[in-house]
């Protein structure tokens, strides 16, 4: 009906002015964010009130215009209305860009799918806000673990380090609200310092394709973004309260957003989590409590042509480390491994004692963008991060309450990015990055510095281009160069300095020679090239293929270069190497996927070769007065990783769905012809989900998780002499634990309460059968079982 009226209007007004004017204005209306054509946008010419709609290709034509300026209003149901002034001269073509805010909000909240992808030829896995909320009381790593191909390297149950296709730590970049996290991520027992509740969605890129964030993502990139804020007058919020039986703890998170039609907005978010000792099926895991407090604040202005935002977040987490994992030498290790129960089991408590970690991460970001008509969008960002990490060991005497490790890492980054649509079919992204980082290791600990004092300077430049050949094919290519320079001042033990031959190779970097320590000033610098090349092909509406090659170059991290000494939490001596160069990864990933409501699947095989891959492996046993310790040295080798991740989802009956995940990864050290250590075992997750929108959106899920035994591992056992028994015994640190199977249940139901508020009640049980198991990728698996049966109850209030 509306169209008839429009046609009528068009006819009438057209005839009224057609005597003198016969020009036309034609073009398209597109989403300014990603160039999506907007179907059904309405254009109204002020004065004549002539009106047209865009067709299914986003195109429009307005005829009967004179050689003059016109004011044109453009409407779209999911966009804020915009007015444009157009100078018509002859037949004029013009592209109108609208900001597609409202639909983004809808997609985030309703479907959990945001519009902007980070790469176009690598399949991205997304965890929506709905799914994230189920991990409200857990960690970022727990949430990511729900994706195929992602596992986690754990230290107990609260230090959860995401691992993408077998790679972790410095090889996985974590981007928090556009800021690359610099939170001492090199440590395998350093969990990411992000509150899982601060993210609106999580996006996983299994490769180095997202060059705007860095070229060193040998493993992949995890992008956490806040929920999009609409450009409307609105006030809304959400609060989630979760209680769990294990750890007898609760988690409370709340967020409140205020937005205005004129583009201004503000959002606050906060989380408090407190858990006592976690429990395995048969015993308390003593000293595994956690106390986490986070807050974040956004303030900004979002207009079509420009915008600015200030963001600040504070993350503070205290984590207890299993008391039974703190050991002396190899003899203690033998006892701890031989015992099938932890050697220290105390009564449940909320107290967190040594060994423990206390980490504070602060992040501040200022961002501004300006859109230049016909050129593109320019963004400028400055961010500052301060990461303060305290680690407390079990100590003696006056040092009892002092931290053994006290590192303060400050990072300043400035980025200039440029996005442009070169044509209707192609777009360009380019940018510059400068970064300064300072690490300060507090000497007041009374323990020699694990990571030395250093200043680090990084400079990066990148560009990526994509081009849509036709409806089916899209190609993408990009390159990045990074230069990094470190200025380090490190005290080496004189005996180590000589044992490694540094005295002969690097006499020129010695600053001071003291009795038993040498102060050296190494200045390593690295030039890294990275690149990506890929294509996507759409077979038809349902089938799609992604093929991508990425080249990633990663400079060795401070731990790989400078580690020197006893690492208590691992009961081993770790040694870095000053001579390391960058590791270079080549990865080819293919994704074949089908997407439809009834049956979807995705098959994602990949092969990766990494030259000069840095691994840490045991080399010898060293005698000290504390007993014998295994020495683990970093070394460089060539590695190959192969694997496949499979996801499938099938709606086999009305309201019922079956979800399947399967992942296999194989890593090989090509030089030594042996498997790589700590590769994720084959695992599969299968779930049956019942969801009924008509029944208060009742959702019931029963999930089975089966993890096979890792049969491919390097043998790293060592023998040690035990004076008490006068025998030589083998310390078995390499044999993986057995396969395990656990069952989990999860449910939720929406309860409408008055007005716009609604309440969602969730109930879940993990490890329903209370199975005792150990996980190969848990660094504390030698000492204790994993978690037992856990009941969780959550209340979510949207308002």
């Amino acid at each position, binding site marked *: 009906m509306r169209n008839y009226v429009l046609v009528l209007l068009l006819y009438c007004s057209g005839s009224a002015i057609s005597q003198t004017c016969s020009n036309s204005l034609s073009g398209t209306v597109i989403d300014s964010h990603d160039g999506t054509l907007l179907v059904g946008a309405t254009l109204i010419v002020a004065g004549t009130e002539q009106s047209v709609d865009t067709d299914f290709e986003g195109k429009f034509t307005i005829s009967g215009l004179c050689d003059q300026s016109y004011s044109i209003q453009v409407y779209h149901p999911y966009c804020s209305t915009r007015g444009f002034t157009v100078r018509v001269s002859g037949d004029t073509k013009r592209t109108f860009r609208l900001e597609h805010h409202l639909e983004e909000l809808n997609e985030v909240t309703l479907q959990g799918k945001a519009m902007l992808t980070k790469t176009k030829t690598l399949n991205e896995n997304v965890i929506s806000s709905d799914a994230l909320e189920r991990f409200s009381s857990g960690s970022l790593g727990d949430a990511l673990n729900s994706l195929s191909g992602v596992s986690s390297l754990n230290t107990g149950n609260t230090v959860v380090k995401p691992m993408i296709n077998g790679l972790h730590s410095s090889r996985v970049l974590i981007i928090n609200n556009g800021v690359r996290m610099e939170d001492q991520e090199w440590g395998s027992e350093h969990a990411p310092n992000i509150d899982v509740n601060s993210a609106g969605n999580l996006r996983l890129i299994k490769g180095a394709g997202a060059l705007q964030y860095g070229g060193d993502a040998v493993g992949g990139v995890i992008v956490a973004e806040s929920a999009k804020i609409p450009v409307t007058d609105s006030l809304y919020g959400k609060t989630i309260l979760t209680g769990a039986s294990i750890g007898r703890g609760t988690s409370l998170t709340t967020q409140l957003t205020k937005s205005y039609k004129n583009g201004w907005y503000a959002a606050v978010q906060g989380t408090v989590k407190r858990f006592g000792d976690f429990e395995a099926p048969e015993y308390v895991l003593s000293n595994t409590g956690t106390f986490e407090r986070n807050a974040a604040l956004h303030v900004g202005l979002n207009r079509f042509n420009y915008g600015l935002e200030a963001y600040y977040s504070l993350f503070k987490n205290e984590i207890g480390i299993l008391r039974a994992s703190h050991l*002396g030498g190899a003899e203690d290790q033998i006892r701890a491994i031989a015992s099938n129960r932890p050697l220290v089991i105390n009564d449940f408590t909320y107290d967190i004692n040594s060994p423990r970690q206390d980490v504070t991460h602060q992040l501040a970001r200022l961002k501004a963008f300006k859109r230049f008509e016909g050129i593109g969008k320019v963004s400028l960002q400055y961010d500052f991060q301060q990461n303060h990490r305290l680690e407390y060991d*079990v100590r003696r005497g006056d040092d009892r309450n002092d931290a053994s490790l006290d590192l303060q890492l400050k990072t300043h980054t400035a980025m200039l990015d440029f996005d442009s649509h070169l044509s209707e079919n192609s777009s360009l992204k380019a940018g510059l990055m400068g970064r300064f980082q300072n690490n300060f290791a507090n*000497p007041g600990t*009374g323990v020699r510095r694990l990571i030395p004092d250093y200043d680090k300077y990084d400079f990066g430049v990148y560009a990526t281009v994509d081009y849509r050949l036709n409806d089916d094919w899209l190609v993408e290519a990009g390159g990045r160069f990074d230069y990094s320079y470190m200025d380090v001042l490190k005290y080496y033990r004189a005996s180590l300095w000589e*044992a490694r031959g540094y005295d002969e190779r690097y006499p020129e970097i010695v600053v001071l020679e003291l009795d*038993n320590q040498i*102060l050296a000033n190494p200045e390593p610098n690295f030039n890294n090239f990275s690149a990506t090349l890929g294509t996507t092909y759409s077979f038809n509406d349902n089938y799609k293929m992604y093929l991508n090659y990425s080249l990633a170059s990663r400079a060795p991290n401070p731990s790989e270069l400078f580690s020197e000494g006893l690492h208590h939490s691992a009961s081993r001596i770790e040694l870095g190497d000053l001579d390391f160069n960058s590791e270079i990864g080549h990865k080819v990933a293919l994704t074949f996927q089908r997407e439809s409501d009834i049956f979807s699947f995705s098959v994602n095989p990949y092969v990766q070769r990494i030259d000069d891959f840095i691994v840490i492996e045991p080399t010898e046993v060293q005698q000290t007065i504390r007993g014998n310790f295994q020495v683990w040295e970093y070394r460089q080798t060539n590695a190959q990783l192969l694997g496949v991740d499979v996801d499938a989802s099938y709606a086999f009956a009305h309201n019922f769905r079956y979800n399947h995940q399967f992942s296999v990864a194989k890593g090989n050290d090509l030089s030594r012809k042996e498997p790589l250590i700590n590769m994720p075992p084959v695992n599969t997750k299968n779930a049956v989900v019942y969801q009924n929108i008509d029944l208060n959106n009742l959702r019931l899920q029963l999930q089975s998780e089966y993890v096979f035994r890792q049969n491919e591992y390097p043998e790293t056992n060592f023998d040690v002499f035990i004076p008490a028994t006068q025998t030589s015994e083998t310390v078995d640190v390499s044999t993986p634990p057995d396969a395990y199977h656990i069952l989990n249940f999860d449910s939720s139901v929406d309860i409408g309460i008055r007005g716009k508020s609604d309440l969602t009640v969730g109930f879940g049980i993990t490890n329903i059968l209370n199975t005792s198991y150990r996980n190969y990728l848990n660094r504390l698996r030698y000492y204790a079982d994993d978690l037992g049966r856990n009941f969780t109850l959550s209340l979510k209030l949207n308002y």
Partner: protein
Amino acid sequence: MKILKIAAIPFLTALLSTACSSDDNGNIPEIVNEEEVITTMTVTLSPEDNGADIILSKTDLDGDGPNMPVFNVSGNLTSGTTYTGSIELLNETVTPAENITDEVKEESEEHQLFYTSDDNLDVTTVSVDNDSDGNLLGTEFTLTAGAASTGTLTFTLRHEPKKPNDGTLTDAAGETDAEASFSITVE
């Protein structure tokens, strides 16, 4: 790469002006000498009949560094003699050396020293000093040399052992803070 370095300078200048305030490169970082490390264990055995002391020592001056510990046994034990033993623990990475035995005595309820001899060696050891709770501490002991024999005698300092315990390392558990095995001959 010189050019790139130069190119980076203006870009980084703004950052550096705020960043360099606290830790200037011209400053030498403060040296850290390990405060807790035990470098030296010295066991002094004084014969009751006023003969010369027998000194057993294990020294590892670089702590967790690559150098091997050095062992020293000043002489053989005499069969049938009872010795008064005392154990001294030092941190010699600092000057003057820090006496760790004092710390062990101050926190006596959290520590215990154990003596383990292998089956070949005929000696008997008895701990004589107690902690503040009246349980064994073990910094002082008596050693009685039996028949002529040769074997290994091990001294182990455990932190946070189970107390009281049955006198074996296995029962006591805790963490090993120091350990020294000496080859001993009774003649």
